[in-house]
């Protein structure tokens, strides 16, 4: 049954071209950034890594309006609740599906994006490692804010604001990994990611429960 739920979420994430939306957004930022700061390769190389992290965070939050709200409006969440499926389980499945549905394409898109931002091989490796560690946490935050705002009209706009404070440590330690002196950053990033990923299902599950009242 959980597998059926997972495949449904993944199918809806990747169906009808939605797969490419966060990825295109991610590449759009990477393309626009050199035009804004100028094509000076050393400057790009120094600042581009941080830009990748900002773009990844925003790309994760881009689809939050279709992570929970359509299921609520269509009555799918009610039907699952009637069947006794715990809200935390639904949230966990959604987080997993979002992590894979958006995380995998993002990691692939990282390579052209990094090339556009003049990142050398070493930095690309660091970025890929960091993003791979952070993706479960990003997915967790996205599902949490989707669940919190599903009951609000025009909730998408505040969705990003809600999770921004929680996402800041990911940005600091993720981008910090690129600093040659930031050797502990990867461990702190992993710790923050683990914490957010672990909290996610329970916080989002509570928010899903609140949607029914």
């Amino acid at each position: 049954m959980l597998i059926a739920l997972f495949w449904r979420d993944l199918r809806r994430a990747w169906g009808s071209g939605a797969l490419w939306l966060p990825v295109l957004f991610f590449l759009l930022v990477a393309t626009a950034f050199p035009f804004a700061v100028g094509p000076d390769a050393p400057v790009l190389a120094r600042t581009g890594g941080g830009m990748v992290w900002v773009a990844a965070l925003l790309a994760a939050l881009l689809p939050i309006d279709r992570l929970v709200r359509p299921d609520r409006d269509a009555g799918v969440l009610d039907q699952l609740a009637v069947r006794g499926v715990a809200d935390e389980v639904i949230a966990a499945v959604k987080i997993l599906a979002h992590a894979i549905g958006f995380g995998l394409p993002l990691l692939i898109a990282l390579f052209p994006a990094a090339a556009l931002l003049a990142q050398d091989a070493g930095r690309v490796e660091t970025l890929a490692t960091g993003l791979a560690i952070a993706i479960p946490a990003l997915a967790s935050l996205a599902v949490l804010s989707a669940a919190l705002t599903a009951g609000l009209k025009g909730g998408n706009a505040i969705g990003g604001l809600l999770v921004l404070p929680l996402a800041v440590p990911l940005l600091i330690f993720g981008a910090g990994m690129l600093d040659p002196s930031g050797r502990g950053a990867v461990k702190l990033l992993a710790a923050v990611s683990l914490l957010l990923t672990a909290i996610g299902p329970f916080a989002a599950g509570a928010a899903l429960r609140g949607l029914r009242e």
Partner: protein
Amino acid sequence: MLLRLDRVACIRGDRLLFEDLSLSLAPGEALWLRGPNGAGKSSLIRVAAGLLRAAAGTVERFGRVALIDEAAALDAELPLRRALDFWARVDTVDGHTVDRAMAAMGLHPLAEVPVTMLSTGQRKRAAMVRVIASGAPIWLLDEPANGMDDAAQARLVAAVTTHRANGGAVLLASHFALGVPDLVERDMGALA
């Protein structure tokens, strides 16, 4: 006993919809909740389903529940059969069960039609297929016949009758009589 509500009260917003409401359903029984719009029929169904917390009283269910409410809970972009198959997998029932339920509601000709193309009545029939196929003993049907034509209503009544004959119970909320035989009535309008 399959379903028992004991002295249940329900508050929506700051309005008391009903209080001190008790009902019970044994295998084979069916109860018709009738009353005007806003009388609390849908809320009572949701309380019975466990989707709404009762402000007071106790709700006990002795078996699985199948629910129809205003939302069909079928993925609009999928063909009808695949949308129903998702719930069959969630309910862990096989394809034959879905086949039989689709036949009971006369939906086989529409199996390949995307859910988004279906009319209101056809969607209600599809939701009914999900209820029948789930195999749950307790049916909670909130306005199941909305948008249904006479032939579809007859199928609905037949499905309810079969379900009761098999030892199931039905709680039915509807603002008009469906023609289900041997039905206990509960007028929600009289409560307010």
